[in-house]
């Protein structure tokens, strides 16, 4: 019953808040209340809680608890922010709809059911992507996202359908490699791995800030947890079919590729969208290691990515709302008019890049340590990618806030978003300075997964 409430409550609340959409204060308050209830239910549900619906079942694992609470926290920030900085109309009801679908996807025990629910979540997320009055580029973004959702579901359904066949014909290595390739394509699309990353950058450019954060957080968390459960369900994928090598190549490609592509970007949102894809590369690198430390590092990095993106995009939202400019070359000297947004952007960026003393440092340090045990060349390659990404993002920050020729237009920084940005930044600093409580929770969750180290 608890799990049914966890899934159904946000869906019902989405309908209610939609009906009350003419009262923004009420809908925002209701949405925040629902999110608080959800977090409490999640806390009380406990690990291994179970709900059987015929052959389908929902079950809570420790990773599920951590990431659902994370998503709820991000959603709460987004709802509060959207009340003060204009996002999509009916944003709380759209967000609650996506939340309900995402929770159902994460809790689904059967991989088939999870894949279909992942597709359903992707389609539900379209309500955050579609802006009918924007036309033009927004329609193209919507089209790309629909294609991504349908194509990734097709690859994953085909891969999962072939699993049982492989178990019957274990000498068919070609079949195993086909399954791995299909999984790589399916998850690569959802996680915006290079070369499947274009939807993410276009999305970030054309959508309001909080829509991008929710879409990325929802897609990444659900797809990541599904990837993890798939490796637990079929561990031979990592060894027999070269899944670990494919993950390794994909992650290095993502880290290097996104860093280089970010160098040439002019749009503020697109640069930091590349930062998100860069961080996803680290997550996959941690998974590819096949060790408990790497897995814990990957999960911690996913957590860091969600929080850092939230702070970054909240700051960008204030900047672009105030200046009505998204090209960073046209902005300069905003440190006096938007100090808190600048601080939030800096802290979020440094955390995303894994610099101390922020949350990202602990996660990326763990991943670096695992990589270093096996290949120093890989460490150098990853470090080079990080260095390029650091240059691209910090260059943007310095130009926007410390550049010459201050922007002549007077820009005001609203109070309430400032408070949210400061809260988010403080969270990143606290987790960075005292990562152990979060790490302990992640480590105990990671201990349940069986992995083999690299050969």
């Amino acid at each position: 019953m608890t799990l049914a409430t966890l899934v159904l409550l946000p869906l019902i609340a989405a309908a209610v808040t939609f009906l009350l959409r003419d009262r923004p204060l009420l809908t925002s308050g209701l949405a925040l209340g629902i999110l608080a209830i959800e977090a409490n239910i999640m806390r009380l549900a406990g690990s291994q809680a179970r709900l059987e619906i015929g052959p389908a079942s929902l079950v809570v694992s420790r990773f599920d608890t951590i990431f659902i609470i994370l998503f709820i926290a991000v959603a709460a920030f987004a709802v509060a922010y959207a009340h003060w900085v204009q996002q999509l109309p009916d944003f709380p009801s759209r967000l609650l709809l996506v939340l309900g679908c995402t929770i159902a996807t994460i809790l689904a025990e059967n991989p088939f059911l999870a894949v279909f629910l992942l597709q359903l979540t992707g389609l539900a997320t379209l309500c955050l992507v579609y802006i009918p009055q924007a036309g033009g580029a927004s329609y193209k973004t919507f089209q790309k996202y629909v294609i991504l959702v349908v194509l990734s579901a097709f690859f994953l359904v085909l891969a999962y359908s072939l699993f049982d066949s492989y178990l019957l014909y274990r000498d068919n290595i070609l079949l195993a490699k086909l399954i791995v390739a299909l999984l790589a394509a399916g998850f690569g699309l959802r996680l915006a791995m290079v070369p499947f990353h274009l939807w993410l950058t276009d999305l970030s450019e054309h959508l309001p800030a909080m829509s991008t954060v929710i879409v990325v957080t929802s897609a990444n968390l659900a797809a990541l947890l599904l990837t993890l459960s798939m490796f637990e369900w079929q561990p031979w994928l990592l060894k027999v079919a070269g899944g670990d090598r494919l993950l390794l190549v994909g992650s290095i490609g993502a880290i290097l590729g996104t860093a280089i592509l970010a160098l040439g970007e002019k749009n503020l949102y697109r640069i930091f969208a590349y930062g998100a894809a860069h961080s996803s590369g680290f997550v996959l690198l941690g998974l590819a290691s096949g060790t408990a430390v790497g897995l814990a590092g990957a999960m911690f990095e996913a957590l860091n990515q969600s929080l850092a993106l939230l702070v970054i995009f909240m700051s960008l939202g204030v900047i672009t709302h105030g200046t009505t400019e998204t090209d960073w070359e046209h902005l300069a000297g905003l440190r006096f008019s938007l100090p808190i947004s600048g601080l939030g952007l800096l802290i979020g960026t440094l955390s995303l890049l894994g610099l101390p003393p922020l949350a990202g440092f602990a996660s990326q340090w763990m991943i670096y340590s695992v990589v270093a045990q096996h290949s120093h060349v890989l460490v150098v390659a990853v470090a080079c990618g990080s260095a390029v990404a650091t240059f691209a993002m910090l260059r943007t920050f310095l130009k926007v806030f410390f550049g010459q020729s201050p922007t002549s237009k007077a820009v005001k920084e609203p109070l309430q978003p400032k408070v949210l940005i400061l809260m988010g930044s403080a969270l990143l600093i606290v987790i960075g300075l005292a990562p152990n409580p979060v790490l302990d929770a992640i480590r105990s969750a990671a201990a349940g997964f069986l992995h083999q180290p690299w050969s």
Partner: protein
Amino acid sequence: MIVILTVLLLFTVGLAISTDKVRWLILGLAAHYLIVTALGSKVAYPGWLASYLVAGLVTCLVLFLTMRKLAVVVRAKRFETRAQDEVPQSDTSYRLAALALAAIVTYSLSESYPLPDISGELSFAIYWISAAGLFSLIVSRGALRTSIGLLMIASASQLVFGVINVKDSPIYYSISAITAILVALAISFLLAGEELSDQVDRRDT
């Protein structure tokens, strides 16, 4: 009978992705759902067959109503012309040649790398529908043909689920059908969005 159904599938899918006429396009799409249901009837559970067919026909209905509404908003003649423009070469012989080549490649793939544990004709059907959908996605320039490509790929997903890893559960059927219908609704938004973006562009120029 199986051979006839397979040939009909070849024809109806080809019709759906190559024709300029919207009515024939939707008819081809609807016919392909019927033929796939017939082909899968020996392997799949009745529940899956019913959910697949119902979702497919609802998809066609959604598409038809959307196109009719847009044809009322936009002059029908311009809408038919757009369908023509969305294929790089309007020449019928080019399209038929491309389709024939795709059919030969699909047949070779299904013979050389048949999908495990299913019959040859179902393997061919999955390959053909997937190939047609990907072909339409890659070569199309507009929402209409992209939509047909997406619907073909969604159909292939459902077919894979129904005949390769067979599960008899109303929950799986209903979620599978709901996602197919949601894809159709998303496509109707896509078509409306393309028209809106065209209007914005025309206003700006």
